[in-house]
């Protein structure tokens, strides 16, 4: 089992004919993901390496039955592309695009919630979602993931996620699904959403949560872990030494006054019973220990 995506997920790539879109779309297909369509307005009727191109997501859905979308379009077009996918009935939209203004993201989040409650958005500014051996939507290098579970991973950071996948895979510990929720201020999917899905997934035995400074999603995750989760959680939070008031690469990674510090997040996660690592390697080691203890 896995969450959000599996071997039956049919993917349409919005922006497939762009350089980033074709690079990642074709990589996802090479991994084994069922990439069934591409969308580029004005290029409908064509094809790319055997993948049919449509003018709109609605046409792609009608013809191919696509139920998930990978959005790899420029900053200016991302909002429209995501809403188009939602309107076409796509259930899972993964948006890789970075540098989307916070106003647009807030508008998008509320529009999806109000008008398209069945559509889940992962991202923007995220590496995507991979269920090893089944489906990879996004920019994660599939080779570093190991199928078979039992670990679920949820993270705000791309490279720290890759690091975690790598450390677990090298120890022979597989993953059910790895979800990068992205580093922006208004992510479509939160830690709590993903934790709930992992808690409900019988194949996931333990969860690794990788957070960072900014916002209060880790604190909300801690509440959820304390009250709703039975599965063990190993956590790591980056940015203990980050200065106040500075954006650390990700738009969402900023300590504002006394709020959003790594220290507060670590304290909240420890208080809820999660095992919190001091660095990524330690997170890997702790998780290997936890998995061996699952029996």
């Amino acid at each position, binding site marked *: 089992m896995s969450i959000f995506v599996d071997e039956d997920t049919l993917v349409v790539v919005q922006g497939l004919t762009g350089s980033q879109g074709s690079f990642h779309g074709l990589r996802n297909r090479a991994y084994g993901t069922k990439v069934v369509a591409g969308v580029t307005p004005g290029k409908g009727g064509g094809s790319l390496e055997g993948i049919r191109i449509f003018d709109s997501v609605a046409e792609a859905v009608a013809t191919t039955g696509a139920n998930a979308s990978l959005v790899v379009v420029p900053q200016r077009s991302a909002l429209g592309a995501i809403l188009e996918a939602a309107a076409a009935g796509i259930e899972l939209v993964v948006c890789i695009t970075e540098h989307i203004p916070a106003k647009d993201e807030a508008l998008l989040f509320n529009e999806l919630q109000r008008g398209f409650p069945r559509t889940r958005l992962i991202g923007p500014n995220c590496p995507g979602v991979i269920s090893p051996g089944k489906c990879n939507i996004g920019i994660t*290098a599939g080779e570093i993931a190991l199928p078979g579970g039992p670990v679920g991973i949820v993270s705000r950071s791309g490279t720290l996620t890759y690091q975690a996948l790598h450390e677990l895979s090298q120890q022979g510990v597989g993953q059910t699904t790895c979800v990068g929720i992205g580093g922006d201020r208004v992510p479509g999917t939160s830690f709590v959403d993903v934790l709930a899905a992992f808690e409900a997934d019988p194949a996931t035995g333990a969860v690794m949560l990788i957070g960072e400074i900014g916002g209060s999603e880790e604190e909300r995750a801690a509440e959820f872990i304390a009250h709703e989760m039975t599965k063990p959680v190993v956590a790591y939070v*980056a940015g203990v030494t980050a200065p106040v008031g*500075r954006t*650390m690469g990700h738009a969402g990674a900023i300590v504002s006054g006394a709020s959003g510090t790594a220290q507060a997040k670590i304290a909240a996660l420890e208080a809820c019973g999660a095992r919190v690592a001091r660095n990524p390697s330690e997170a890997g080691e702790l998780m290997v220990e936890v998995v061996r203890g699952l029996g």
Partner: protein
Amino acid sequence: MDLYEYQGKRYLARFGVSVGAGAVADTVGEAVAAADELGYPATIKAQVKVGGRGRAGGVRIVADRSGAEAGAQDILGLVIQGHPVKRLWVETAARIAHEYYASLSLDRATKLHLAMVSAQGGIDIEQVAAEAPEAIARLEINPLDGLSPARARRLVARAGIDGEARRSVVDVILRLYRCYIEGDADLVEINPLIVTPSGEVRALDAKITLDDEAAFRHPEWSEFADAEPDDPRERSARRKGLSYVGLDGSVGIIANGAGLAMSTLDVVNQVGGSAANFLDVGGEANADVMTGALEVINSDERVRAILVNVFGGIVRCDDVARGVLAAMGRVELASPIVVRLDGTHAAEAHEILRPHLSARLLVEPTMLAAARRAVEIAAGVGG
């Protein structure tokens, strides 16, 4: 991008928010000339992007020319929380009947916009929030609905603002909301929002942060280009398009990905060192990007060791290794460089680096080991 007060006021004026007449001054002479022109009493205010300016002596009301001269002289000599005062804003001293507070920001927890209004302005709002939270009226605004005049009226009423100024305050709140939305601000905070004895509502201070991600649709923001960072390292990094934050330690950091870069700073700290910077080269760790990154770090006199921490996913470590070598050929590094490359094609990367290893270029297998080595070098141990 944080705006200086004077820039914030210019930005507010675009949206029809009333601000006092004033002028920018970079020297005592300019300040005196501005005050003469505006008339006395005048207010001279330090332009720095930190709070607590008033307590630090950065705001002075002056009654005449000699007062202006002395005031400007004093304030231009101040360093407020590490920020040297280089620019002043001189404005006509306002006559104040009431001081209010108003702000707009994004509440990341609810994913809604948040308007806050209080009749207790002019003092630290965090203090008001702690001591009299009921004095702050809050309103969540769904971006799909926007802020209607009726809701703005109720918000202002709940804040306890009444009397003749109420209608004008409501009008200003609606304009602030437009500034926040159409102006793509992350934060619009007016403290105090004053009412003059004649009933005019005016922003006496302005704290505005613009959303850098929205710069593409605001060509007019180029006028704020002098809101550039004070730190020369950050100016240089910005010109090279690098995601860089200057810190004050001795280990220069280059990593790929914001999370890994932050994590690298933490690990350096855990093993007893301190980072000179945050630098995320993202998915493009090629020779040009590496050269730019090493140039910025090399210009930092505090740096004693450089730590390159890359995890290869789609970015291949062998490409990064070639990039590092090419960059080292272009930049003469003042400090030794410790490289940790893991992930895709790491073995090939190590083969590429092997013939070049020396006391100036070292490779370590893990992030922790690399951080330890870099911190040892920076501390002068075994060097």
